[in-house]
């Protein structure tokens, strides 16, 4: 079974975030980075599938050159090789362009299963996985909290988290793409032997032009206009009078604000 798992490097969860000077993004200079949380669970799921069915696990990462530490961690935990999409053209992509780039790198591998995390902890779009599935013409399931495979590995049975405590079990044929929810398993620790072994595993670095992509194809369809901390605003208006008057005034106010 050939399994690709997409891992994004994101700022650490408890890092102190500051907005950069031109308000376009957070100031990354003082941050430390780690694997996106749900991606770490996706990697563990991939490694377990490999343990059950054999085959190989490939880490795919789109990110700057210092994402190599996160890639190495994936290799140290047991992935066999990695594809690192690393090029200045890949900076500040939107979800569509990210999915397009990853699809261009992963598609030719013809994997049986592609895993991504549910969403990235920094941008939080939750779209990259499902967009990629569409671009590669693969069935997909999102927000998966349990996964089973048939003996021959040709069918996946997954449990999806819906809203309000509802769940859904669905089956699908491979090749398929699954976006993994945090908590599906208990990710392993990178062993010291694994860390040393990771040095010898191949990391294939690809630029946009290697993948036949150019800046035009990757132009974001949406961009962050300006980033700011939530402004604290509070206005209190006392409605006075008897209950009937107050209720009428309240209803008028809510209608006026378009709340009801």
């Amino acid at each position, binding site marked *: 079974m050939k399994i690709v798992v997409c891992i994004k490097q994101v700022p650490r969860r*408890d890092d102190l975030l500051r907005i950069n000077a031109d308000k376009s993004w957070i100031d990354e200079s003082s941050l430390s980075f780690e694997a996106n949380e749900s991606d770490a669970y996706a990697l563990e799921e991939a490694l377990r599938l490999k343990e059950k069915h054999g085959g190989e696990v490939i880490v795919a990462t789109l990110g700057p050159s210092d994402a190599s530490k996160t890639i190495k961690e994936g290799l140290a935990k047991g992935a066999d090789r990695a594809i690192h999409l690393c090029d200045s053209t890949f900076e500040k992509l939107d979800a569509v362009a990210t999915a397009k780039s990853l699809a261009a790198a992963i598609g030719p591998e013809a994997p049986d299963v592609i895993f991504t995390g549910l969403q990235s902890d920094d941008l939080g779009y939750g779209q990259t996985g499902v967009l990629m599935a569409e671009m590669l013409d693969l069935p997909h399931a999102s927000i998966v909290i349990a996964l089973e495979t048939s003996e021959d590995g040709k069918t996946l049975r997954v449990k999806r988290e819906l809203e309000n405590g509802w769940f859904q079990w669905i089956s699908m044929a491979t090749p398929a793409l699954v976006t993994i929810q945090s908590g599906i398993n208990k990710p392993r*620790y*990178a062993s010291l*032997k694994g860390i*040393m072994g990771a040095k010898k595993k191949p990391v294939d670095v690809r630029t946009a032009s290697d993948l036949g992509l150019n800046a035009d194809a990757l132009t974001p369809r949406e961009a962050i206009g300006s980033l700011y901390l939530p402004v604290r605003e509070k206005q209190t208006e006392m409605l006075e009078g008897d209950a009937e008057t107050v209720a009428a005034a309240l209803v008028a106010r809510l209608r006026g604000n378009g709340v009801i």
Partner: protein
Amino acid sequence: MAEFRGVDFYGIEALLSEEEKLARDSVRQYVEDNVIPIVDDFYERGEFPMDLVRPLGELGVFGANLPTEYGCAGMNNVAYGLVTQELERGDSGIRSFVSVQGALVMYPIFTFGSEEHRQTWLPKLATGEKIGCFGLTEPDHGSDPGGMVTRARKTSDGYVLNGAKAWITSGSVADVAVVWAKDDDGRVRGFLVEKGTPGFSAPEIHKKHSLRASVTSELFFDDCHIPDANLLPGSGGLKSPLMCLNQARYGIAWGGIGAAMACYDTSLRYALGRTQFGRPIASFQLQQAKFAEMLTEITKMQLLALQLGRLKDDGKVTPAQISMAKRNNVDWALKIARMARTILGANGIASEYPVMRHMNNLESVYTYEGTHDIHTLILGEAATGISSFK
């Protein structure tokens, strides 16, 4: 509560390789998840958490700087040092177990053992399937191990051991003891004594106030016959056990940083949250002076250990350089633990916080692997060229 993030006031992170950081982070996470939540209960009960041994083996911490062909991780010494640092942030008892297994048992088997010894023991010690201990200290010979009275008398097919060892970490749980004894010529040799060998017993020493989550034992040899094959052929003279101690002291120098960081981090969080006289106690100058001192000393400890590791990786380290780091880092770890304890007030003595446990543990670390005084004398000799021992 926010995760522990280490202490890095001097941008030391930038001096570490990717592998070194990954090794540290992986062990830090392991310790955070598996050691810190349980270790205080074990400490209270005076029990070593045996269930951690196999997982620690899987993680690869035993003899992590020994070669991969014997099932070890083959890491450099800086990465190995960072591993012991993180283990000691959990508890000095866990780090002691790992130091003994790797530096005092696997290292001598690797260095002085036959190829058969290496093949037989190293892979199993690396996974934690087998446990080892190191018997050098005797009831009457601590700082002066050359005075040891344990004897290995040659017989036709082996040796007969007689004598006693004291204060031996992991003694009662060990499958194999690396025992140092004088042969008929009065030369110190290393022997592998397996658990269950007739004439060998290893009762545990109870009622300790320090390293309570660690097994400490006596070893008794009463006409204990061991075959020729159990002699470590490469060992000879007091230099052999001292070479082992250098390996262990190296790891201890890093371990001190771990204990110190735990105490600093705990007391800093506490001081920021605790209010007296309407202000956080962290805002008072007397407490700030403690933090300034702790932060400075931790930073110095880190730089000392890191350069020591680089020297060791280059094969240039001297025993006296190791003495300096062991002496300084454990001494300051202990002082920092005491300072942190005062910042926590009454809570400083409570089990809920790790500070007093570290403080008590460090009293052992201060004494074992060469007491603070003995390292002072080694450095005195390095400085003056005059030995005060002879």
